[in-house]
């Protein structure tokens, strides 16, 4: 459904991405891991339509992506809530295309799904980091996008909040089955959530390896079979580090 074809991206003299090929099926969850500077966030921004590739194309159901599209939702690394809007109004912000009378019930339902029903009237500054990120997820999901992109969505949160939000994301996925493409530097997060893990290398950013994780969800983080994949991915990334190409920023 989502086709990434021969994407390259150059910033002046710096080759951020070279010849990325990736096809994502409807309802599939794909996690992208890589060292910092491997261009994984840039790739996501190109798919979101926030940035244009230097060459290559992104198509969604055979339609070229040339800018932000209503079928594509994006969760950023930070919540990015409008500080002057209540939590509910922030979620309604994503519903500008809907008739006015539909917005409030939809927003309230989305907030209830992420467990923030009681905080609809609060201002973002009153929320904790995890709550704010949940509100951001509600905003990205409220318009029921066919594709959900997530750019290190939980990396700024403590481990506990991270685990609960990962579970939350899977609950939501079960309900709507959006196609999900997410970027992370947390290998375990990628393994617990994804149908497929894509490992990227830096300088220039390129796809190094892909692993299909054919285990039923929900998966336990300690599951023995995940450990095998984890070691192989670590080796993939370690290669990159020992090659002097990147910093070991990934977590285990």
């Amino acid at each position: 459904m989502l086709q990434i074809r021969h994407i390259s991206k150059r910033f002046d003299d710096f080759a951020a991405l070279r010849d990325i090929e990736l096809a994502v099926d409807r309802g599939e969850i794909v996690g992208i891991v890589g060292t910092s500077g491997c261009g994984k966030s840039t790739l996501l921004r190109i798919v979101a339509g926030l940035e244009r590739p230097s060459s290559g194309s992104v198509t969604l159901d055979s339609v070229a992506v040339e800018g932000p599209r209503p079928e594509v939702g994006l969760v950023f690394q930070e919540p990015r809530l409008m500080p002057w809007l209540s939590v509910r109004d922030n979620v309604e912000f994503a519903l500008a295309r809907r008739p006015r009378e539909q917005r409030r019930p939809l927003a309230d339902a989305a907030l209830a799904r992420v467990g923030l029903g009681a905080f609809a009237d609060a201002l973002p500054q009153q929320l904790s980091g995890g709550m704010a990120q949940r509100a951001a997820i509600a905003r990205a999901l409220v318009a029921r996008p066919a594709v959900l992109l997530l750019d290190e969505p939980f990396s700024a949160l403590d481990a506990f909040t991270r685990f609960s939000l990962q579970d939350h994301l899977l609950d939501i996925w079960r309900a709507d089955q959006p196609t999900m493409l997410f970027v992370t530097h947390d290998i375990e997060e990628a393994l617990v959530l994804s149908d497929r893990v894509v490992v990227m290398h830096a300088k220039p950013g390129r796809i190094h390896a892909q692993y299909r994780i054919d285990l039923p969800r929900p998966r336990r983080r300690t599951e023995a079979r995940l450990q095998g994949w984890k070691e192989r991915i670590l080796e993939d990334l370690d290669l990159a580090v020992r090659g002097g190409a990147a910093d070991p920023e990934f977590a285990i």
Partner: protein
Amino acid sequence: MTRALTRAGRLAAKGGAIGLVLPALLLLLWEVLSRFDFAPPNLLPAPSAVVKALRDLWLSGELLGHIEITLIRVFLGFLLGTAVATVLAALTGYSTLWRRLLDPFLQSLRSIPSMAWIPLFVLWLGIFEASKVTLIALGAFFPVYLNTMAGIQQVDRKLVEVARMHGYGGIALVRRVLLPATLPAYITGLRGGLGLAWMFVVAAEFMGASEGLGFLLIDGQQTGRPANIIAAILLFALFGKLTDVGLALLGRRFVKWQDSFQTAEDKKAHAADQTHLQAV
């Protein structure tokens, strides 16, 4: 609004009470010294003489006219300066082309001391209202222009991206993101502009007016009535403060979401508590 007012009242009660002690003592000392002829009344009239001057001006029916014309001048000048500043700041803030075109020129105008314009304004616009209002508008212009332009430029690019992601562009982007994000800086600019408008109305009324609080100052000097001068100074302070508080309260209503507005006030209250404790 009423909540904000009672809050302001509480603050004044807590922090203000102790702050009134020194002025009250000075006032008392001043009155006593005057009564015993320590200060020549033709230079420094007693507070009671100032109150009497105020009352005489009021009873003659003159005072209301002076206040009214000064308020009108400040209001018109502030409105004109703010309107022009808002439009130009919107242009230079949003568009790099307009900024490159206009901003250097406007910045260079800033280096001319504003009072230097007076002779030219009088020559062009006559000695009546037009030149006065223009001078006041010039005073109000720069704080509004500079704050608003900076405010627009400092809008968080990340929030703009969120809006783009949800299909906002053009007018909708301005209305839903850029305007609310710029509002705190705009209100700061408006308050600065209003302050300068009050400063410039004095200069404007010095340059040949037959009414207004500024005229009272000059008239008091020329006719040797210092009580009138002090009365006019007090009225300037009173109306300057009142209009600023009004604008601040109006502003707080629109930007109550902003962290720094509220914390700044809480800090002020806290600081007042501290001084109070130390005094006790």
